[in-house]
């Protein structure tokens, strides 16, 4: 997973894909590589994971970490036109924003290809050793990943069409590009992960690099200890009968049942994934789960799992 130069990190909403993308980018940067971390939905969560303030299309270098940017398809179009059209675009098309909006609405895939195109461009030009993308959530990521192919099918000639070839070369090379699917040990995220992995493998030539199971809970008890806890919790011997201990028993019961359910969902995940696909586990963070400190914690534990 860590050898690829372009990683798309996706996952169901709420599973922590931004946290994992940030952790991966930090880990790669900490190993001395020049890394670009890019957020595609402009929510600012990725920049927040690096405590980088407000970040736009122009990458901002985080001290000791990656450069961070936020995708802006209009800026991407502007950059693209500047590179490829000889005419001074900005002066000629007054309402570029409106024109762009129209083309993007009219021509499905244009927005997506400007996103993917910019990322592939950075990989091709080798400005960075690795590009980590906090990509769209499971429901939308396929539209993003398959945009070059979709455009290939719809547009027969023109500049965009001529550009899709090299993008596909980058995307379809498993040594270069990989998708990382983030999930949690819960039912819906596991279901969506399995569906997405299947769909990526069926409908694209893009490689799935691995699955990260985020917020994994520690196992509290072995079978015998769990039985011992159950008898203690029901009899409540000695001072445990005091009402103050209600919370202690509730918490422990909650922790064990969540862990047990989680383990069942992880088992379902493992059964459903193609054999040999790497699965990494990230522990649940009981303390503050956000910001640079959390990102470094995630990077450290990913390092333990992936290297």
């Amino acid at each position, binding site marked *: 997973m860590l050898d690829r130069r372009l990683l798309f990190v996706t996952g169901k909403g709420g599973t922590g894909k931004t946290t994992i993308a940030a952790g991966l980018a930090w880990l790669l940067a900490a190993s001395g590589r020049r890394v670009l971390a890019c957020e595609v939905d402009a929510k600012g969560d990725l920049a927040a994971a690096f405590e980088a303030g407000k970040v736009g299309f122009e990458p901002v270098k985080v001290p000791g970490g990656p450069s961070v940017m936020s995708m802006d398809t209009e800026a991407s179009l502007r950059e693209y036109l500047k590179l490829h059209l000889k005419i001074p675009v900005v002066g000629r098309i007054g309402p570029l924003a409106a024109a762009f909006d129209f083309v993007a609405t009219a021509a499905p895939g244009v927005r997506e290809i400007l996103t993917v195109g910019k990322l592939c461009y950075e990989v091709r030009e080798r400005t960075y050793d690795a590009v980590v993308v906090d990509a769209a959530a499971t429901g939308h990521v396929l539209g993003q990943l398959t945009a070059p192919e*979709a455009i290939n099918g719809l547009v027969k000639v023109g500049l965009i*069409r001529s550009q899709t070839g090299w993008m596909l070369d980058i995307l379809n090379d498993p040594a270069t590009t990989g998708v990382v699917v983030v999930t949690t040990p819960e039912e819906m995220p596991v279901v969506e992960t399995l569906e997405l992995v299947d769909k990526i493998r069926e409908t694209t030539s893009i490689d799935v690099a691995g699955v990260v199971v985020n917020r994994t809970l520690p196992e509290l008890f072995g079978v015998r200890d769990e039985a*011992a806890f159950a008898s203690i919790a029901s009899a409540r011997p000695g*001072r*445990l009968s005091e009402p103050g201990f*209600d919370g202690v028993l509730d918490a422990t019961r909650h922790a064990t049942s969540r862990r047990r359910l989680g383990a069942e969902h992880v088992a379902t995940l493992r059964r459903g994934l193609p054999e040999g696909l790497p699965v990494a586990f990230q522990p649940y963070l009981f303390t503050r789960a956000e910001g640079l400190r959390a990102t470094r914690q995630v990077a450290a534990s990913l390092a333990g799992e992936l290297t």
Partner: protein
Amino acid sequence: MTTSSVRGLTETREIILCCGPGGVGKTTIAASVAMLAAISSPGRVLVLTIDPARRLADALGLKGIANDVTRIDDATLAAAGATPRGELHCAMLDMKQSWDDLIVRHAPDDRTASRILSNPLYQNITGRFVQSHDYIAMERLLELHATGEWDLIVVDTPPTRNALDFLDAPARMADFFSSRLLRWLIVPAKGGLLGFAARPFTQVADRILGTQFLADITDFFLSLQSMYGGFVERARAVSRLLSDERTSFLVVSTPEPAPLREAEFFLRELASRRYEIGALVLNRALPPTLSLAATEVASDELGRDTASFATAAADELGLDVATAERVLGVAAHATREWAVVARREAAARDRVAHEAPVVVTVPSLDDEVGSLAGIFTLAGILGDAA
């Protein structure tokens, strides 16, 4: 008019839209609200889900039939423990089917309809790219509401990049059809002279996209334009329906920081657009005892004095002392960890408490989506909350 309970909402509103960040159990809550309505008052209730988990779809008896409405019969409800006073129906949203229906309805004639339906762009927009789902979900709601067959429709809003997209979708659709750019593009195809203003745009578009593709686009939108009036009227009707006093929004989140921040943002946006916020549901909350001060004291005591607790337990229950000590040590530690999370959740709940007239906390259940019985349990919790 504000209503002081979720049950009150189900009795006074015709549409309840469940919305919020992804992964918080929105669909399950929507089903539970509909269940609550069906068990508490007579009437016909419909829950419209967008993309339910398979187990939930199975529990609801949805078999993936395009846009069909299925009734959950009383015997099935009784088996789940529910005694309905009304009827509970459910439906899934089939995007492709709904788009096709919409085109057929608004097209001036069959020829135009089939020209649109067979255009590759149309197929791409409806099949591949998800943005259009926001609009069609609202369109389908309007259609179902207009039949007048339902006392209450509970809608599970589509999963979107941004939970607000579906609110803006009708306006975007109307804007799109009335855009000057659309007319620019269509003028040359009608045989008129290419306007001066359009020239740089088409020049660039042509260089980038190619003539054939531009022609495809033009043909597509030329066909669509014949439906302009119908579309804009529908979009306006959807907007009106959302702000109607018979419609209320129920925002669903978990008490965790990230989803809750998104939910708060959403609540403020709803308020600023003058939509009615009916309730905020905080799903999958930790047991309430965890955030009590007494729990902290107790877990500290247990952690400090594990050995004596263990001796007492071992004596009374015939356990091995070492086992009891290990188990109780783990319990003390786990409690301290989860208490931190619980206190964080409690603080977050206090922060958002004033953002909605009703805030309901729903505990995390072992098996919430697997069965109609689970949905019935949730309906009970939602109904009991003041």
